[in-house]
């Protein structure tokens, strides 16, 4: 069996990462990326460089088809050039769409060396820069997975329901582009997703399987970007909620920022349009957290500094189950103590 599972593990460096931010994670969950950096530096004592010069990888443009391969591979080459100039060899990629593109570009360069040479020529002509290929290109969730036991040794709030003493029931959703294109590049491959379940198990929770675990969240790139086609996205998230609901999850855990946003927002839309919610208390949704947000919570960071007030589905039911000592009113205050008012209440989905 160990031989069988060898192909579902991968090399993850121990230290010295060059951080590539995600357009969606930064803009919807900026606190998640910052908590990742804090955890890496403060709790795990790792070196992660946050470059002020990299740009989008253009991944959403690529998968909405307004950016072609030769352009995106050269943008990726520029990120590698910056990393080379900064003295790093391991890229830590925050976005799952980007992660898939980095794997795709590296694979095509390996199979077709002419393409790699073309990328070098294009980049030199456009920017004067040169680059070395990375020693490792990993997703940030891979890194947290690698250090999950070290994190477990520093846990402040394990994934135990303090009200019942039972492990919290966690369903995961791994972004399609993490392992569906290149299963050997993802922990557990596409068939046995373990990159998130491994965190849940290490921190005391129970990972719950559900029939549509591997189904796409429904981003569908152009199907979401074009407003007229957005029903595609809603439909597929709904398929997942219906599939996980009978298992009474306490939490949906994700490693892809887009999936996280969709599974949070579409629960609100379903509640408002159908009067249907999926949480264990009527009117409440299932909280949806990114892996960085959950890691920060179990380590004791303040929920409102993590940015959980930016979620539409309230996280407070989960915080109470975890026994987290938090200020419920804190979500409505700015860093200088200014009261910011409260969001308008949805008509059906309950918020605190």
């Amino acid at each position, binding site marked *: 069996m160990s031989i069988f599972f060898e192909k579902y593990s991968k090399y993850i460096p121990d230290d010295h990462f060059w951080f590539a*931010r995600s357009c969606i994670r930064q*803009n919807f969950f900026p606190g998640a990326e910052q908590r990742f950096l804090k955890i890496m530096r403060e709790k795990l004592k790792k070196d992660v460089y946050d470059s002020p010069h990299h740009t989008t990888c253009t991944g959403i443009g690529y998968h909405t088809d307004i*950016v072609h391969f030769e352009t995106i591979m050269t943008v990726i080459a520029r990120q590698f050039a910056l990393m080379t100039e900064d003295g790093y060899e391991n890229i830590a990629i925050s976005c799952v769409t980007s992660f898939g593109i980095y794997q795709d570009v590296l694979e095509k360069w390996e199979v077709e060396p002419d393409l790699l040479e073309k990328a070098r020529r294009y980049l030199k002509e456009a920017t004067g820069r040169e680059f070395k290929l990375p020693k490792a290109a990993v997703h940030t969730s891979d890194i947290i997975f690698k250090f999950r036991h070290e994190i477990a040794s520093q846990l402040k709030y394990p994934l135990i329901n303090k009200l019942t003493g039972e492990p919290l029931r966690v369903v995961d959703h791994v972004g399609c582009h993490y392992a569906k294109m290149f299963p050997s590049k993802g922990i557990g491959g596409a068939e046995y997703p373990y990159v998130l379940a491994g965190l849940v198990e290490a921190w005391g929770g129970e990972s719950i399987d559900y029939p549509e675990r591997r189904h796409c969240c429904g981003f569908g790139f152009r199907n979401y970007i074009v*407003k007229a*086609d957005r029903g595609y996205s809603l439909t*597929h998230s709904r398929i997942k909620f219906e599939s996980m609901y009978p298992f009474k999850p306490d939490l949906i855990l994700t490693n892809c920022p887009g999936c996280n946003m969709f599974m949070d*927002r579409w629960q609100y839309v379903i509640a408002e349009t159908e009067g249907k919610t999926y949480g264990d208390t009527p009117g409440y949704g299932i909280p949806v957290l990114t892996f960085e947000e959950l890691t920060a919570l179990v380590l004791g960071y303040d929920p409102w500094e993590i940015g959980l007030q*930016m979620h539409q589905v309230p996280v407070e039911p989960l915080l109470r189950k975890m026994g987290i000592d938090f200020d419920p009113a804190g979500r409505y205050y*700015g860093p200088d103590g200014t009261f*910011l008012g409260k969001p308008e209440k949805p008509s059906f989905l309950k918020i605190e």
Partner: protein
Amino acid sequence: MSKSLVDELFEDVHVRHGLEACINCGMCTSVCPAALVYDYDPRVLVNLVEKRDEQTIEELLKSDYIWYCGECMSCTTRCPRNNSPGEIVIALRHLSQRKGLFIHSARGRQQYAVLKTVGGSILGKGYCVYFDDLTLERFPEQGPTWDWVRKNRHQILNKVGAAYKEVKAGPMRKIAESDLAELKKIFDVTGGSELYEIIEEKSREVMKKEGKDEESYFNEVYESPVK
């Protein structure tokens, strides 16, 4: 003599990597989210491409059929022969745009909306999507909490550690002009700018023919449901 559409399609890196030999098992269709909601079948699409027939390819490039796929790449995982219908779709869409054929289908015309939103953001801000553009008008599903975040952006983004619109390292930072200039130069050198121009130019031809201004055409392709 110009190359045939078939030759151009089969020279595309995505077809070179995404099409081995289809055995018509239909596994791709069985897991395809697009096939679940649209009258779309990736197995049929691959069959049509494999015919290598010029007229068939031209019809495909002018049709809605190539624009349903969500590029989740679930098909790639399951194909027992290492094909990737999703990659073939990328090649078809690129060729359809490069040849100006995308304007013949309602879903193809939506690329103008993609260009104006994602495309503009990439070269204008250095992000595929940026906070300032994520309005409730365009994204009503973002909901009231998002609206509250937008109204209190400076306080909330500061609290979570964002570098909103600042030229320094950090989330949501302003990408420096020198970095944006390099990105634009990459687009110029690799044909990316040319692709933008073709989508813009061909869309303008439609606007002119149909007597529409930019705003009404954008709203039509962005918001109007396609039957």
